[in-house]
């Protein structure tokens, strides 16, 4: 750690343009931005159904369990599933890329 450059010595613009950093940033954004759009669309589809088609939500599926409860629990399930998907992706793909760039800065590659 003693040899790693101070923050004022790092050429941040150069790091930002480097190939490894660009890969890291693109990997992250191309994963989280479409996924965020998807869960927001799914959530508002649910909200619009609940607000304007309560009759559809009241359709019985089995016993007293109706469409509304199925879709509501569906929101829970997708939230948990997206969480675990993101975490495994972040651990496997984002973290190693971030570590690589971090070490380059620490080694003084971008002074």
């Amino acid at each position, binding site marked *: 750690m003693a040899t790693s450059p101070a*923050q004022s010595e790092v050429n941040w613009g150069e790091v930002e343009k480097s190939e490894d950093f660009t890969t890291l940033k693109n990997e992250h954004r191309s994963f989280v931005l479409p996924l965020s759009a998807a869960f927001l669309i799914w959530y508002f589809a649910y909200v619009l159904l609940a607000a304007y088609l309560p009759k559809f939500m009241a359709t019985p599926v089995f016993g007293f369990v109706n469409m509304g409860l199925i879709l509501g629990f569906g929101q829970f399930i997708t939230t948990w599933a997206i969480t675990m998907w993101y975490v495994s992706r972040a651990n496997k793909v984002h973290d190693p890329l971030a570590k690589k760039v971090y070490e380059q800065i620490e080694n003084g590659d971008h002074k």
Partner: protein
Amino acid sequence: MSRFLTEATATAPAAAVIKVDSVLNISIFGVFVLVTLFIVLRASRSNKTAADYYTGGRSFSGPQNGFAISGDYLSAASFLGIAGAIAVNGYDGFMYSIGFLVAWLVALLLVAELMRNTGKFTMADVLAFRLKQRPVRTAAAVNTLVVSFFYLLAQMAGAGGLVALLLGISDKGQQAVVIAIVGLLMIIYVLIGGMKGTTWVQIVKAVMLIGGALVMTIWTLGHFGFSLNGLLDGAVNASAHPEIAATATTPAVPASDGLSILAPGLKYGANPLDFISLALALVLGTAGLPHVLTRFYTVPSAREARRSVVWSIWLIGIFYVFTLVLGYGANALVGKSVILAQPGGVNSAAPLLALELGGPWLLGIISAVAFATILAVVAGLTMTASTSFAHDVYASVIKRGNASQTDEVRVARITVVVIGVVAIIGGIVANGQNIAFLVALAFAVAASANLPTIIFSLYWKRFTTQGAVWSMVGGLISAIVLIVFSPAVSGGAKSMFPLPVDFHWFPLENPGIVSIPLGFLLGYLGSILSKEKEDAGKASEMTVRAYTGYGAEAASSH
């Protein structure tokens, strides 16, 4: 018919107000206070630097912080409010919890890790990172204080209602004493324990709250042969035949109407646009709540911040599943009309269910959990607000970065006392008023005034100081103005100023559908219309640090 409610119903058939064992309830709460005070005292031993006081030395693990986030987020409104809303309005109550949960994906995917890597103590640290310090930091600090204060006031005023319900105190003067005690305890916790003590109070509270809800959920399901269908059947039946659960004078409702509690529409059926507006604020507000954001600074790295959000998403989600069972369970086993006849109204559903299931002891424990909930949430809010005042307003704006750490923490502690006193006075004044809209307002301001600037700062290179200021100021003012002239404040039967006072012109109770797009639009317009150039080097530094964690604040080493 319940064994504890029978007597009361026999003597007062119109309004069956239950008798509570206030000595037992206070004793159980007293034990909680002693245990947490002990933990806070132990935790305070290592409070040396500003980082220790503001962030607990960034030494909490992901799972610990996950519990603390849940303890911070699951307010009395989530517990008593949502269970009660489901008991009375059925499915519409459930829709709140879905918004509150899905919102965490915004925090996980877009905000938590990048903020952890670029900030130090406050939300403003991130927003002002690459823009002009003074205007951006001032606006961010004002928004932090406003959001925290609205939220705090709602919690403190709620404490008054809870006292009436759980301790059987209906005298306003005695309720004021209890509000003052809650406020004083909160001040003591935060002053002594700082962020470390506050975090431990939240962890203990989260374990109690989720554990208590789990026990009640299993117990409730046991009444229906552990069948979800049986539970729903019971709730539908009780709603269709309210005369069985309540007073003999209630006219019978046609059996088919019982099913309406399983579908949307009982609360928002008349005004679906209002619900959409609320849903926007719920799902986009969470990741802009300053007291949620500062929790990411209490862990040593972005990776731990990620783990904490994962833990909190599981804990919060599971808790909301419990509240669904508790809400429908209270409807089936206690009955809507009995719930609504209590002094706490809708909020009494979960406590009444506890009484019905486990008698006075379970009610006592659940009451203590409810008080612990208020205490932990107000402690977290006060911590965040005082940190922002000391670090952003005092040290950065007034002293221009030339204040010593000791001075900064001293100012933070004084601010804690000031905020605590204001909260006590505000809570006493607002006690009994209908100010439930304040929580929704806090979410609306967070979504309209904070989230656009957070997202633009992290993801849009051309974002400028002017864009940030327009967005933060415009989002804040539009959300507040719209709610002041909404039916939540005047012109309705349940307004803060009920009819005949009427100065409303905005048709919805929730401003989000207008103010959130406005906040984003102003951020965009302010940026593309800027004449001044921002510091490109700072922008590069922020992006690199956000993604790599280089130069991020580390955990303190003791």
